[in-house]
């Protein structure tokens, strides 16, 4: 950074923009610790009662359970489909490889609403209705690109000579995979898996078309709550818990992988 009249102004500007980025999160979390009946920031008094109110709300608790199960199974599915595919994409040369990879990653970029609607029509046309597996598969489709991208990046950067060495030393392909490739791929899998989990856990545009009252997820429940009753500190309490969890995950991610790499859409 250079020292001239512009530098100070530049830093000030950045501080304001970064403040803008943090503001609604700080507010959503801060509201949870208020004693007011309506969400207010800053709160007039401090209290933890909204956490209790949120925890005793059966609608939110069951939606939270649904979301956790759905996100966990989505993560398992994305790794089951994404890991073999990324191995194949690195080991084998495919015709039109960049285009192929772009297509495989495309669920990431297309508007979620479109996929949600088309999945709804698809399940309807197939006579499946709003089956729960439809929701699960839809989440797997939108989350699998994260696993694919992180494992591809890690596998490409990996020293493939290690695999050859293992083979030369007499390991069969499975042993090589199990004891050499997989441990080295772990950072990519952990990062991709966590992002797949978060993608499923936070999703609204796809879930809103595919959930029923019984299968509804936490963000969809919160959203209909906000649409109907405006803002309530209960949502703040849920936000506080969720933000705390997610930021903890982010720190873990940074340790195992380096967050900048996964989220930089411009990075190749």
């Amino acid at each position: 950074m250079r020292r001239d009249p512009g530098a100070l102004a530049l830093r000030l500007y950045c501080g304001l923009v970064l403040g803008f980025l943090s503001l609604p999160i700080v507010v959503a979390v801060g509201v949870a610790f208020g004693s007011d009946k309506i969400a207010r920031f800053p709160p007039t008094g401090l209290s933890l009662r909204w956490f209790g109110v949120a925890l005793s709300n059966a609608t939110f608790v069951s939606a939270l359970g649904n979301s956790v199960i759905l996100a966990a199974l989505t993560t398992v599915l994305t790794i089951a489909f994404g890991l073999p595919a990324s191995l194949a994409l690195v080991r084998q040369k495919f015709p039109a490889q960049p285009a192929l990879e772009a297509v495989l990653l495309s669920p990431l970029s297309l508007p979620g609403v479109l996929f949600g609607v088309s999945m709804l029509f698809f399940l309807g046309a197939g006579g499946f209705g709003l089956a729960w597996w439809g929701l699960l598969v839809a989440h797997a489709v939108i989350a699998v690109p994260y696993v694919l991208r992180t494992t591809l990046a890690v596998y490409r950067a990996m020293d493939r000579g290690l695999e050859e060495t293992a083979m030369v030393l007499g390991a069969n392909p499975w042993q090589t995979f199990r004891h050499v490739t997989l441990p080295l791929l772990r950072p990519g899998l952990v990062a991709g898996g966590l992002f797949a989990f978060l993608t499923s856990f936070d999703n609204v545009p796809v879930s809103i078309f595919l959930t029923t009252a019984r299968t509804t997820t936490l963000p969809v429940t919160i959203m209909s709550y906000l649409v109907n009753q405006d803002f309530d500190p209960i949502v703040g309490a849920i936000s506080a818990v969720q933000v705390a969890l997610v930021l903890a995950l982010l720190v873990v991610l940074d340790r195992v992988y380096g967050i900048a790499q996964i989220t930089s859409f411009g990075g190749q």
Partner: protein
Amino acid sequence: MTGVLCLIPLLVLLLAFFVLPFGVMLYQSFFLSLLQSPAGSSPTLANYAKAFGDFFYLRVLLQTLALGAAVTGLALVLGYPVAYVLARTRTRWRQLLIFLVISPLVVSIVIRSYGWMVLLGRVGTVNTVLQALGLVEKPLPLMYNWFGVVVALTHVLLPFMILTLTSVIEGIPESLEDTAAVLGAGWWQRFRHVVFPLSMEGVGAGITLVFMLTIGSFVSVLLLGGSDTLVLPLLIYQQVILLNNNFAAALGMSLLAISVVLLYAQARVFRVRGAA
């Protein structure tokens, strides 16, 4: 050979549950719904004619594109300086900056919208502060209108712009700026004639990405918008609720077409960069 076999499960998953659903949507967009034509209908372009011929729906399309342009422009103006600082920071502050830019991305959009609702409501933080300072007498209408939508969406998409720009600006050698400085260029001239022109690919990629994500956004518009802030994703949602599935399908295909064109344009921008 095993390599190809390993790719097949994912290909099948995406063909069956990603490509095929869009195929169903495309197919349905060419038929009238049972509500419009109870006896069934033959293939028709009526849904598309309605989407592009009716002034009401055309206005929704234009509003969607205008919203995309507004949010993209704001994200560029707000994000560029941050991206520059992030790209040029080598000190321990770098980790903190990255964290501040990325953390909003992992917080649910519903929660972020909720934060904005608390801030922008009639008795929200912003209005309370403005009134306490005596700047306004009556609370300003800051949400359930375009203002709230633009603020919330800019917040959602700004990190994407910053990260895209950062990755490109990092590739511009700092020595070029030093040389310009030695030759007497002030900060504005260095930005105007050195950094900005060299970051045009990042600007192009960031603009396409943010525009595409904005015109497909749904949650922020639903929560912070009002009756007049109708955009394509919301219109599609409403039509599905009204069981106008076939018309929703035509609207969906139109939005999909725009998104695919933008996606292709974005890929082209990166190909240029890879070749250079």
